[in-house]
């Protein structure tokens, strides 16, 4: 059991990620979580590494980047409060598809992917809601990636 459980519960409950999840289930989530504070510039995880934890940002911002040979670290997305990072730890094989770096002092709620999965298996209702949340995060991120790919500002309006 986590020592900063009450604080954790308060922070977690304040995030949009858990909107609609019952108090009991939040308690359960907290039991699988820990509070993590990162100073600006600290790495949360590294592309290619295997991680067990997924993270919900409580405050601050995390930058995601990928390493491209010859171009170095190429940042592609900034995530902020209420958003989920490291989802591979929950629904992938745990291998991170990006490097995550705190760009300011950042507080995260780190949840054990294994314990979260167990929780979802035993509490099907929570599992359903949680996976819905993850799906929403991923669909939003997919849309955002698509918009970036479209290079909307490349040939944009010249006048009016």
């Amino acid at each position, binding site marked *: 059991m986590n020592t900063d459980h009450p604080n954790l519960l308060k922070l977690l409950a304040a995030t949009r990620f858990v909107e609609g999840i019952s108090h009991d289930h939040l308690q359960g989530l907290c039991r699988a979580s820990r509070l993590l504070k990162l100073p600006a510039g600290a790495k949360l995880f590294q592309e290619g590494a295997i991680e067990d934890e997924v993270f919900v940002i409580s405050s601050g911002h995390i930058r995601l980047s990928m390493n491209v040979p010859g171009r170095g670290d190429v940042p592609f997305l900034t995530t902020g409060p209420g958003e989920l990072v490291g989802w591979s730890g929950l629904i992938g094989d745990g291998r991170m598809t990006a490097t995550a770096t705190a760009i300011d002092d950042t507080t995260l709620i780190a949840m054990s992917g294994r314990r979260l999965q167990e929780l979802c298996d035993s509490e099907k209702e929570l599992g359903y809601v949680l996976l819905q949340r993850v799906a929403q995060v991923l669909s939003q991120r997919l849309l955002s990636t698509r918009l970036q790919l479209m290079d909307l500002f490349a*040939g*944009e*309006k*010249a006048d009016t």
Partner: protein
Amino acid sequence: MTSPTESNRSVLFLGRGQLNQLIRALADDGYQVVGPTIDQAAIVYGEITSADDLPIGWTDVQEPGKYRLQRRDDEACFGYVVGPHSWKKYLFPPVTLVATADRTKTGWQLSTPETEPPRYAFLGVRGCELAAMRIQDKVFLGGPFVDPTYQKRRAAAFIVAVNCTQAAPTCFCTSMNTGPRCSSGFDLALTEVADGFLMEIGSESGNVVAARLNVEPATSAQLESGNAARQQAVDQISKQLDTTDIRDLLMNNLRHPHWEEVANRCLSCTNCTMVCPTCFCSSVNEVPDLTGDHVDRERSWDSCFNIDFSYMNGSPTRNSIHSRYRQWMTHKLATWHDQFGSSGCVGCGRCITWCPVGIDLTQEVAAIRSSQNNPSVEGAVNSSHDNEGVS
């Protein structure tokens, strides 16, 4: 529409031989008389100096994509329907100089030429054409900005309307409530009968001109034959456009597959928009002379069927025939209501006759409408989907 009855408006009779008197009276007043005349195998509008210039004894036979002149078995002056020209060519000319720029020692001198507008007397304006003028009045004079060219030409014009006594298979003015009876918007209105013309007076200027003609009050027999002649036109109208909720019908079906079907036939050649008496689209272009020291800013008729018309940021917005046909038809029949408070169509049928491949907008509307009434017909699924977002 209530048409004025013969009893509440004094009707005069102008003998066939006296038509020249009218033309001469208008010319004496300084009007350039323009009216129907035969040219290029059609009845077009051109300068008229005497009744001999009129298409006496000729009529037009029309169907989708086809127009032919034909001899009549009488000597009627106005025994035709409508031709390829409309009066907009005089009020909103195909090419107008709107401004000029001349290079000076230190820059440019910009000017807008304001020549005296020509004073036209239009002879032979049909009911649908009067309606078209009312519609263009709203477009050019009814908004926050007024078009000076149209305004001056319109104000100076004298209108001699002529009631239709026959109709073409392409006519559908009765569906659009624009005719065939000329009820207002004219200075004088004629109805051609066997031995002359019944004449109604629609304005004070009309009254002044009529007073100078050898006219006499029409007899009841003459009135009777006028009624019969006009009724003949009504009876001959066979085409209909069901305008019930037409705005919503079309706007709720912007994704209907039928647009694509029309696009298979449509040439996007602009003919329908050019012959339409209400279409008003134009472009202002820079026309520099060789030295580049003098520039004319010319406004020319343009068309929503041209790819360039919607060009923006390197590509056209309406880059397919189906989107351009849809733009034209939905504008004419649907969004015109939002913009100007009426339909943009007067039912003259020109767009049907002069379409080189005979596309008939009344049939295209009917096709979309029937798919609404019969869910098994094309597009019903799509259109119900469209309904969601439309308020």
